[in-house]
């Protein structure tokens, strides 16, 4: 497929592009949804095509087609150049392109069990069994399970000489139980909301012991219907790892995207409260806060060999001992900001323009365990598993809801609380991080549904986290 990608690049160059790159992508997705022991959905999707990007002056153009005949591929390159030329009608400042090594390489996700080779009956049976267990609990109205697998081959060629093939395998899923009361619904999910996804094969599903947790999850969903409502207060907030991972995603991951900081996403996703002049001086959080963007973490969902500009995967410090020190960037945004390119540009399939996306933006672990944190907390709440999330366009004002919470009194978990929410302002909130569990509870949580861009693109991102505690947080916000 390198030849096909090269043909697209040549088409763009012949039409006047100063630089061009192209990706031929073959992506396969398998989606299985089971609801109350019935197979609701068995989809196998495949997309094959080429996307080509052309730069003329300071303007980009991008064209994509699924028609892989030589004439069509070449025409896509020419069209990308024509689009770039039209962009020049409303052109911007001169475009620089940061240098990266010109690689000719291949890379593959390490995996044990090809998820597409595991029989569909085994996968369906797994979900039927967990929904059966959950339905066996009195009060559970809906029990659903999902598995999704991704197999992506992409061939990247640039006019600078890149020739990179990657084979990326991602696997994951999860399940949830819903109990329905008179005027409310309560849900519990496992391993986390929307499922847990990682790079790797079917072994990443097996390790989560789906069947061993179904009964507990279902019982909790039913118990929530009669649990006390969380009262509004300011208190110590202990977050379970997957909720802390989403907190990182929303209030750090998006805020550090250089395209947002530069205003490129202003109209849709928004901008950022971060200003480049304050890089290396802005206080993002407490001393315990150490965030990295690490695309090399084995097994994490945002792990790859090269990004979609051919930049090698790397680990970049983002927040060090509470101080903001790094961003997520690509070749053009990094050059504009005078920073080294971070290799964080990816496109959602052959037909989407690569853009700055999170890799694995995670919080490095602290010490001890969740139990230690609870033992050391006189008064507070422990919240687990995301239920809702909302944050403003600068990634400053957020409100999260979780599926479940427990009060913490005198170092012990107390009664269960329903409809938990908490709200805060990003730097103030992170400034109150005062406890962080250690490596034994550090998990590479995966977010398979990160939306950004127009046309919309969905990225798969990783967020390593262990449970942590924040002080003086406003919880229990009511309608």
């Amino acid at each position, binding site marked *: 497929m390198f030849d096909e990608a090269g043909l697209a690049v040549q088409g763009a160059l012949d039409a006047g592009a100063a630089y061009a790159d192209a990706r031929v992508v073959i992506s396969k997705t398998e989606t299985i949804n089971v609801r109350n022991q*019935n*197979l*609701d*959905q*068995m*989809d*196998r*999707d*495949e997309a*094959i*095509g080429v996307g080509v990007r052309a730069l003329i002056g300071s*303007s*980009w*153009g*991008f*064209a*994509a087609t*699924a028609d892989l005949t030589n004439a069509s591929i070449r025409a896509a390159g020419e*069209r990308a150049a*024509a*689009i770039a*030329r*039209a*962009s020049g*009608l*409303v*052109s*911007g*400042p001169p475009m620089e392109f940061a240098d990266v090594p010109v690689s000719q390489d291949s890379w593959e996700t390490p995996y044990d069990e090809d998820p597409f080779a595991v*029989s*569909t009956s085994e996968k*369906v049976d797994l979900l039927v069994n967990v929904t059966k267990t959950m339905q066996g609990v009195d009060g559970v109205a*809906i029990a659903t399970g999902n598995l999704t697998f991704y197999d992506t081959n992409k061939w990247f060629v640039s006019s600078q000489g890149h020739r990179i093939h990657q084979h990326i395998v991602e696997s994951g899923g999860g399940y949830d139980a819903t109990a*329905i009361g008179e*005027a409310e*619904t309560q849900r519990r999910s496992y391993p986390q909301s929307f499922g847990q996804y990682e790079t790797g094969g079917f072994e990443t599903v097996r390790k989560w012991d789906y069947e061993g947790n179904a009964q507990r999850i279902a019982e909790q969903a039913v118990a929530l219907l009669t649990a006390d409502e969380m009262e509004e207060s300011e208190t110590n907030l202990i977050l379970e790892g997957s909720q802390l991972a989403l907190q990182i995603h929303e209030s750090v991951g998006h805020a550090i995207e250089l395209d947002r900081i530069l*205003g*490129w*996403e*202003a*109209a*849709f996703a928004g901008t950022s409260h971060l200003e480049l002049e304050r890089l290396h001086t802005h206080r993002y959080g407490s001393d315990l806060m150490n965030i990295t963007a690490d695309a090399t973490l084995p097994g994490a969902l945002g792990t790859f060999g090269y990004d979609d500009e051919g930049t090698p995967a790397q680990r970049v410090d983002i927040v060090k001992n509470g101080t903001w020190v790094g961003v997520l960037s690509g070749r053009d945004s990094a050059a504009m900001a005078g920073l080294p390119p971070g290799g964080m540009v990816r496109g959602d399939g052959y*037909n*989407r*323009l690569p853009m700055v996306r999170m890799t694995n933006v995670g919080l490095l672990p602290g010490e001890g365990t969740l139990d230690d944190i609870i033992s050391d907390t006189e008064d507070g709440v422990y919240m687990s598993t995301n239920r*809702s999330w*909302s*944050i*403003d*366009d600068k990634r400053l*004002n957020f*409100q999260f809801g979780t599926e479940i919470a427990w009060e913490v009194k005198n170092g012990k978990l107390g009664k269960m609380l329903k409809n938990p*929410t908490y*709200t805060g302002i990003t730097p*103030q909130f992170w400034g109150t991080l005062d406890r962080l569990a250690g490596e034994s509870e550090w998990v590479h949580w995966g977010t398979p549904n990160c939306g950004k861009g*127009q*046309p919309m693109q969905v990225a798969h991102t990783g967020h390593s986290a262990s449970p942590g505690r924040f002080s003086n947080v406003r919880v229990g*916000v*009511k*309608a």
Partner: protein
Amino acid sequence: MNRGQNLVNETLEMVGDRCEAEVTADVGTHSLTRFANSFIHQNVSEDVEQLTLKVEVGGRVASSTTTGTTPDALARFVDATIETAGSQPVDEDWAGMGGPTEVIAADNWDADTADADPMARAEAVKAFVDAGEGLLGAGFCQTEARHHAYGNSAGRRVHGRFTTAVVDGIHQTSSSAGSGHAAGKALSGIDAGAVGSLAAQRARDSVGAFDAKPGEYRVVLAPEAAATIAIFLNVYGFNGKMAEEGMSFAELGEQQFDEEFCLWDGPTDPGALYVPFDNEGTPKRHLELVKAGVTTSLLHTRRTAKKAGTESTGHGVPGAEMWGPFAINMFVGGGDKSVEELVAGVDRGIYVSTFNYCRVLDPKSLVVTGLTRNGTFMIENGKITDPVTNMRFTQSFVDALAPGKVEGLGDDARYADSEFGPLFVHTPSLQLASWNFTGGAEG
């Protein structure tokens, strides 16, 4: 016969009599020119050609999509889909396929929009940007042209085509932003300069915003904010799957809303978009969802209709097995008041241009949290006075429209952007008696 119809027929021929099958084809182009900091920074165009095949083998069902449509690729695709279905358990909820049918006449197509080139989109962007002299413009201009075709082994064949165009964006000062939006089936029907002018005006009017105190306020919601309410009612309330699962607020025949509030799916309304059938080939028709405040109908696919003991309303969409049916031509009934008259009816309240990042806290009560964005203003003594900073709300969307709560409907109905994107909701501005703001952007 067009490319989509040919693909449908070729695929059904390859399936032959091996099983029951339905095929949808989506063929066309989608182009989007994006700008920020007052220049075009992303500019894309895609040839779309996607085929979806669903097969049923003795009650066992599987579906697949592909972009590979050469004869060899199609043959492999068909064989693999049938093989996958054969190894599944029986789908007890499978509702079968519909037979031959007629769809309403609709050709929501504009030839110039279908042929719009990157320069046409760039010119629209330039008009938007030029309308905000001294400001920073950001947004997009989109055009698309699509042919949809559906066929199944029960003899149903339907096809149609549509175009859409959108100009959407903001202008920004160093401390504020304002938005503008226009959409329809034709790019020529959009005055990009006027959209940019509104955005610029809102941005300039928002300079010097102050933090309003959280609490209950009367509100006037511009069409973008109103569209977000409508789309949440659609997805979480009138959704037949949510209703069947007991997770919807909707109670048929009940006066759940103010009698001024009317909501319908209107594929035959002037200005309607898309093709007049869903992804199961079911014809669409005018469907009242709320009439004078009374909940009158739910949205159904064949699957949810079977469970409810009724007929599909033609609201199947890709992913409906998971998320349920979805209306794509929603209309909120308009009134006769200008925006100035709506504002004049508010002694003390908030004018909201747009909501942002809205998320459901509880689907059954439809309690939602979100923020305001791109133009939020204080209303005092019937006039817009000072700009306020973005505010967070936590509010039941059903309660906000409850009997006695809708105090006015604007005469400005149009297609508006929503939390789920543009081109789904046609709505006027709304004046509501109460909205619960729970915090400012700074806490």
